[in-house]
Each structure stands twice: as C-alpha cells, then as structure tokens.
C-alpha cells in the first residue's frame, strides 16, 4: 500500500528564511449604497473579508490557513496573488535570484534584503511575478479549460512566459505529467479534462502550478472535493513537489485533521482575523483560543462509541456577517469562556480588540488573540 509520510516522520526540515511577509493585510469589499444612505450621507459600509492579518511564510514551509467558510482564508490567498485587490497592508515577497534582473529591467526595484512588495507593483508589471506565485484551486472540474487538451493546459504557462523552444516545452510537459504520475505521458497529452477522473484532473492542476517552478504555491482546499480514499495520494504529490523544489506552500483548508498531517504551522482564522498561530500539531493537540477549541471539538472521528453521546462543541450561535463585525473581540458573542470568566473580562472583550500575542502559557512561538490568555493589566 502506498502512503504519505507525515511531516513529523520526515524529521526536522531545513527551513530557510522568509519567502513572504504579510503585514496588516486588509481586503474590504464595498457594499452597494442605498438611496437613503446616499441622501443621508451615511459612510460607506464594507464586507471586511480580511481585516488586518499579519504572518510570514518560510522558504520550504507548508503554512496552513484554517477556518470556516467566510473567514477570509481564500480571500487572503487570492490577495497575495493579486487575484483580488487588497485594500491595505503589505506583502513582502522574496523572488528567486534569477528573476531579480528581469524585475529590475521592468523598473521594479527590490528592497535591500531582496524583498518586493507585491501590493505596490502596478498590475501591468506583475507578469514576471506570476512565474513565482501559483495557485491550485479546490475544484478540478472548474479550474481546467474544458476545450484545451492536457498538453495545451500545461504548455500555456510556458508559452506565456516565453520559456523554451517548442520541443523543449513538449519535453517539459511530458516530464511534468510523469512526475504527477499520469503515465505514460503520451497517453494523457491529447486528452481533454472531461476524460479524466477528479483525482487525475487535480494532478493536472498541480502540474500546471509547478511547471514554472514557482517559489510559492497557494493550494486552496486542493483535496476537499476528492474522495477520502485518494486524498492522501494528492497530498503526497504536493508534498513531494515541495520537497524537491523547495517551494513554499500556503495550504488553505477547513479540515484541521488534514492540516495536522501536512502543515508545519497553522493560522486559525475567524471572521477576517487570525485568532491563533503556531506549530500545527501543538495547536491541534493543545488549542488555546476558545474558537480553535470549538473547531477541534467539532471534528468527527472514526470512533463508533461517539454515537452513544452528543458531541459537545463549546460555541454559541452562528457566524455573524462580515458586514456587521461585533465590537471588541469579534468572537466574544459566541465565546463560552467569556461567559465563564465574565467578571474579569467584561470590560475587555466587548470593547477592545485583542492583539495576536504570545500567551501567558504555551510554546514561545505560539500567538493567540484572546484577552483570557494574553497578559494585560
């Protein structure tokens, strides 16, 4: 039986410096104003999909963004790739040294330590960076052009970026197909996406993302539409590319159990904010933020004794709209620990937004945005 080695089994990884530093990223979508709002000059309202998040991704790392639908994890991924325009913040990215010259020729100057702010580059000059930043989407049925053959799907990025002669490209495509185990490659080249299974399509999508040898790949729920039985195979493929090329991955998922197997670090998002950040296994095994605790408690496990009792999930109510974010800590209306510790916290949580800081207990690299666990006086 084939299998995928876990992060832990591979031992300590050689992690380089940062490849990406995101600071105070905000993505707000303006709401259409009603006539009354215009007449009464009321201020513009926004859906605050991502509302000020800061994190870094190390070279060769798998960094996970975890959260429920609507928490802003996909928008974060897209903003880094400039597929949606950020409202504010910076995203410092360190391109490969080969690319530096080309960028400078285009008039994009790098900062002292070789970083470039992705959000300051005009759109028309962004193209060389697309080689470095790629994405694998969730839905392999929607992400591949149904009218292109697999050859064309994989060759297109090479053509667009002017890489190789016709014959060289052909060889690169064949090699790529083999490395995603679509063999023999000649069998798959002239097929169309509809002739492939979901798992095979997702391999094509992965091949397409990696064919330009990018420094950073955003994988947005790459296995959640696939059968459980083949998920591990696709995850293994992603990881093997990462190992071989040193590419960093931003892995977006709602599934903490998957995150535990493949991620180095996790950022848990709630309503546009990171509420907890740190080592993947430590967070899942010892969550500190009340929201992370609820997420962990909610996940079903293949243990049939669970059926004799109700699952207790320590959370109240439902996710509020990102257009009407609660005051103070945005989680406080749903927080059971706020109720438990009400006397101490009643003047904090509903009023003041907690920063993402090192908690009083826990590992040194853990960060939590919760007044119950970070120091304040």
């Amino acid at each position: 039986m084939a299998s995928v080695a876990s992060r832990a089994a591979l031992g300590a990884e050689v992690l380089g410096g940062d490849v990406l530093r995101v600071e105070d990223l905000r993505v707000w979508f303006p709401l259409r104003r009603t006539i009354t709002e215009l007449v009464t000059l009321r201020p513009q309202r926004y859906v605050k999909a991502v509302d000020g998040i800061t994190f870094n991704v190390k070279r060769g790392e798998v960094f996970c963004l975890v959260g429920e639908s609507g928490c802003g994890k996909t928008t974060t991924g897209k903003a880094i790739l400039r597929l949606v325009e950020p409202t504010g913040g910076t995203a410092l990215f360190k391109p490969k040294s080969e690319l530096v010259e080309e960028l400078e020729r285009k008039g994009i100057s790098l900062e002292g330590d070789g970083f470039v702010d992705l959000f300051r580059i005009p759109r028309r000059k962004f193209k060389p960076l697309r080689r470095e930043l790629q994405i694998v989407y969730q839905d392999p049925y929607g992400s591949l052009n149904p009218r292109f053959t697999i050859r064309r799907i994989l060759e297109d990025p090479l053509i667009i970026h002017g890489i190789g002669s016709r014959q060289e490209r052909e060889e690169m495509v064949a090699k790529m197909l083999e490395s995603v185990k679509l063999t023999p490659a000649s069998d798959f080249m002239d097929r169309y996406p509809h002739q492939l299974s979901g798992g095979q399509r997702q391999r094509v999508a992965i091949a397409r993302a990696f064919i330009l040898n990018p420094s950073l790949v955003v994988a947005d729920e790459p296995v959640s539409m696939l059968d459980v039985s083949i998920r591990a195979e696709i995850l293994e493929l992603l990881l093997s590319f990462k190992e071989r090329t040193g590419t960093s991955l931003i892995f977006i998922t709602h599934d903490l159990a998957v995150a535990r197997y493949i991620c180095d670090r996790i950022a848990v998002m709630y309503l546009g904010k990171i509420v907890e950040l740190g080592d993947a296994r430590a967070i899942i095994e010892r969550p500190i933020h009340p929201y992370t605790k609820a997420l962990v408690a909610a996940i079903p496990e293949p243990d049939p004794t669970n059926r004799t009792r109700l699952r207790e999930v320590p959370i109240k109510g439902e996710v509020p709209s990102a257009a009407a974010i609660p005051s103070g800590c945005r989680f406080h209306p749903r927080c059971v620990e706020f109720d438990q510790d009400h006397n101490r916290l009643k003047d904090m949580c509903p009023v003041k937004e907690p920063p993402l800081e090192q908690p009083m207990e826990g590992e040194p690299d853990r960060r939590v945005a919760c007044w119950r666990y970070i120091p304040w006086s």
Partner: protein
Amino acid sequence: MLSGKLLEVEDLKTYFYTLRGIVRAVDGVSFSLRKGEILGIAGESGSGKSTLAWSILGLVPPPGRIVGGSIMIDGMDLTKMGEAELRKRVRWKKVSMVFQGAMNVLTPVYTVGRQIEEVLTIHGRMSRSDARARIYELLESVGLHRSIADRYPHELSGGQKQRVVIAMALSLEPDIVIADEPTTALDVVVQAQILNLLKKLAWEKNLSIILITHDLSVIAELAETVMIMYGGKIAEYGPSDRVFSQPKHPYTQALLRAIPRLRGPIDRLAYIPGTPPDLRNPPTGCRFHPRCPKAFDRCAREEPPLFRVGENHLSACWLNEGEG
C-alpha cells in the same frame, strides 16, 4: 414480514441504460433495517450508494431503472408500485429523504413555512390552519424558532436551511428517513450541531435512519450498523463497533487507514491507488481486486460472495472464506 424488520431489500439491481453501455450502479444488494436502527452506507463516489437511496424512494432518474430484486416495506413491494401509488402511500409517509446540499432543495420564491405546508396539505391532507400549528411544532423540534416559518431561504444560514429540510422530512412522521450526505456542504461546527440533532431525533422518536456519506467519521458519529459499498456491491456489512475495530474487507481496512486523525500518533496516511471501477465494464471476479493490496489469482477469476465473519457481520472477500 419478519418481526422488527421495517425495510427489507433483497438482491436489488438498479441499472442505467446509457448509450455507451449498461451501468450496473446497484448490483445485487440485500439488507434490512430495524425500527430505530441507524444504518450508515459508505463508499466512494460512483459506488452506488446514492442510487440505492433513490431506488428505495422510486426516484431513479432515467435512463436508470430497477431491473431486479425487491424492496419490502409493510408488506408492500415498492419495486412493483407505480408512480401514483408511491406518491400516495410511500414517499413522506413511510420514507422521506434529506437530500445532499440543503441550500438547493428549498425553492427561493416561497417562505419556509409555505414549503413545509405543501407537504402537510398535499401529502398529509391537513387543513391549512392545522398545518400552521404543526409547522411551528416541527420547526421547534429541530431547534429553530417558529418565526423562521415566515422567512425565505436566502435569509437563513446553511445550518438553518439544513434544519428546515430535516423538519420537512419529519413532517408526516415517516418510519425511515434517508439522509444523503446531510452535512457535506456544512462547516465543521454546524456539521456537529446537525449530527447532534439527528442523534436526538433518532433517540426521541425511535426513528430509523439510512445515512449515506463518503465520510466514515460521520458514520461513526451516528450509525450502529455500517454498510461499505464498492462498485455497486456490498463489500462489508456489520455492527459499527466491529467494522471500525476489526474491519475484515481489505477495502474497508484501506478506507479506515486513509482517514486523517485528530489525535494519537501521526503515522503514514494510506491511500488506495487507482480509480473506482467503470461500472459499464467492471473488473472480473472481485471488483476491488485491481486496487487490492492482498489480491491473489482467485480474486481476478471468481466473484466472492458475502461470507459471514461474525455476529451479523458480512464481508465479500475470499480471505474471509470459512471464518466466523
């Protein structure tokens, strides 16, 4: 009819007659369901689990049809019934269904109350004023406020809509509810709440539930009996306590190893190489043999029957011959 058996499916065959060949989506499936029993049916996409559910309701879409076997409820054979009779006597009253993706089941142009009312007045022959009281009662039984009745589906969250759909399925007090991937489109926190609701309803009303999902963890949360389907056939069937702790079929074993766990040691996550069989032209012998790590000569030649491997526990693998 046997005592305690609410539903008996015997050698059911549902085939799809497509232009490119006959798809044997359900190919000789037998099982029964007791009052109050929760049966979980698991399998990959294309294993025939949803087709099996549609067959029980007589809702197999063309070009599919039931070509053999029987489905007995209350002494009636549903496979022999016409559309009008199924509508009148079976659907909603005996068996109802919670479909996959609740968000798309409700029509956007009517209020939630109006949609539940239709079931009550058309199928239940209730007056509109009686229906109103019953709607409130139903909404409250699934943990919703009665004011939800006057809302439109777009005003509700995914979890609320799924609760409405469950309330609708319960409206005419059926003996059996079939839930096809009831939580797949929902977030984990909401999923846990919906599973708790189904659990509570099953306990309080002694309801029988057929739960169809690809997620074995969801099955473990609810089902006391599990049926693992592969390529239109039953691979393994048994009490969940046994199937999860001592899986007999190599397919079940592989499926369980493929589930990422939240606790315990992180060991190697297995997967099943290859793709599910093409049911127009299934492999000879055991349908799983091309992907099976334990396959031997016989598996490619002869199809294994379901061997008894323990109390109420069956497995269709030659390795289990003579066990139990």
